[in-house]
């Protein structure tokens, strides 16, 4: 679903040149949740904004659903962002003047969907995330956990294929953080390709695969996970 090939990003020039990403290869299949883990300044957020077509790489290729992003017109790229890509940020980024359901319906309406079907799709997305009640509340009337659920509903509403999350549990306590990761994992199990960038090992451990970034390079990744039976058979928790 998402394919990054030899992607590099350089900011500035000459003595002020900063290599944020260096020849990064990353591919994420539909149904897979991948975590990109690294310290501050390792290039995680740059990787996410390039994957989300919000920024262009200096070198390399980004393919989303087999389409080379660099070959798309400005309009096509904007349409791809609206229709296929969902974003979740640490600070939720909900629009204060809109209710929960209006926030979720907004990307559909911007894409030309009529108000009534957009609202139905938004209500269905909120119900899947356990927020069937209180859909007409405004962001300042929602708790942190509820706000992030609204943000996830907005990110997965419609026909989204790629879900990108930047430290999505950073502003939440551990119980709400876990609930958010369960929802992201379940969205991916329904066929969405997901990328979460984080410095937090607990959050990363929800992913099917963890890719480690250091100084703009992919330096390592975890092996495919064995089933839980192996854990208990080993008696690791005794």
């Amino acid at each position, binding site marked *: 679903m998402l394919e990054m090939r030899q992607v590099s990003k350089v900011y500035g020039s000459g003595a002020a040149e900063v290599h944020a990403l260096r020849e990064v290869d990353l591919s994420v299949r539909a149904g897979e949740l991948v975590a990109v883990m690294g310290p501050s300044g390792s290039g995680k957020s740059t990787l996410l904004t390039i994957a989300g077509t919000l920024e262009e790489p200096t070198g390399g290729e980004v393919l989303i659903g087999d389409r080379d992003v660099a070959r798309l017109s400005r309009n096509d790229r904007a349409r791809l962002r609206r229709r296929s890509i969902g974003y979740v940020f640490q600070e939720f980024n909900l629009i204060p003047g809109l209710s929960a359901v209006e926030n979720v319906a907004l990307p559909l309406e911007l894409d030309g969907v009529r108000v009534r079907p957009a609202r139905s799709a938004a209500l269905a997305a909120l119900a899947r995330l356990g927020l069937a009640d209180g859909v007409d509340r405004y962001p300042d009337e929602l708790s942190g956990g509820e706000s992030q659920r609204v943000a996830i509903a907005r990110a997965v509403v419609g026909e989204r294929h790629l879900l990108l999350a930047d430290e999505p549990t950073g502003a939440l306590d551990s119980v709400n953080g876990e609930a958010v990761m369960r929802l992201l994992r379940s969205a991916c199990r329904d066929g969405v390709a997901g990328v979460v960038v984080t410095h937090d*090992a607990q959050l990363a*451990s*929800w992913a099917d695969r963890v890719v480690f970034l250091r100084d703009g390079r992919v330096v390592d990744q975890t*092996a495919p*996970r*064995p089933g*839980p039976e192996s854990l208990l058979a080993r008696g*690791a*928790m*005794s």
Partner: protein
Amino acid sequence: MSVRHALLALLSEGPKYGLQLRQEFESRTGEVWPLNVGQVYTTLQRLERDGLVESDGSDGPQNVFSITPAGSKELATWLRTPPEVVPPPRDELVIKVLVATRVPGVDVPELLQVHRRHLVEAMQEYTHLKGDMPADDVELGLVVDSELFRLEAIVRWIDAADARLKRIPSRAGGAPTPAPRRRPRLGVRR
């Protein structure tokens, strides 16, 4: 945690058979601590000898055990006694990293990454176990969380070590170091 106190905890709910105690012990510990029936009966005999439980005197599996007032007091004291919080006598990972910083030619950040990956893989196993289990399985959830926080603490130590060594590049490459200065002794790690 001792089997002795776990059995007292189970008996605090009411009288029980030996076999029933074994089944409940395993389910309360998230089925991650298998217990054989022999251990259960040996422990019950010792508890009876110490006056902490009493049996109804029936033979074999029909024997029903109950907690005594002394047993309830012992259980209450044990629950409130903090476990010892001391560093492990020898932390192998800390020793390996300390040694690595002085072995010529060792790429310490790469070495730290090997350990980080290993720990994150273990965390993935536990997290997915938690993600797949029913939300009301509180016992397994508590055991898994405890293991996840323990592993996360080690990953955070590795991240901190990485950042600390990055500030002193000569130490990240296993280069020879100046003669050690005298410094205060820390803890009891021998």
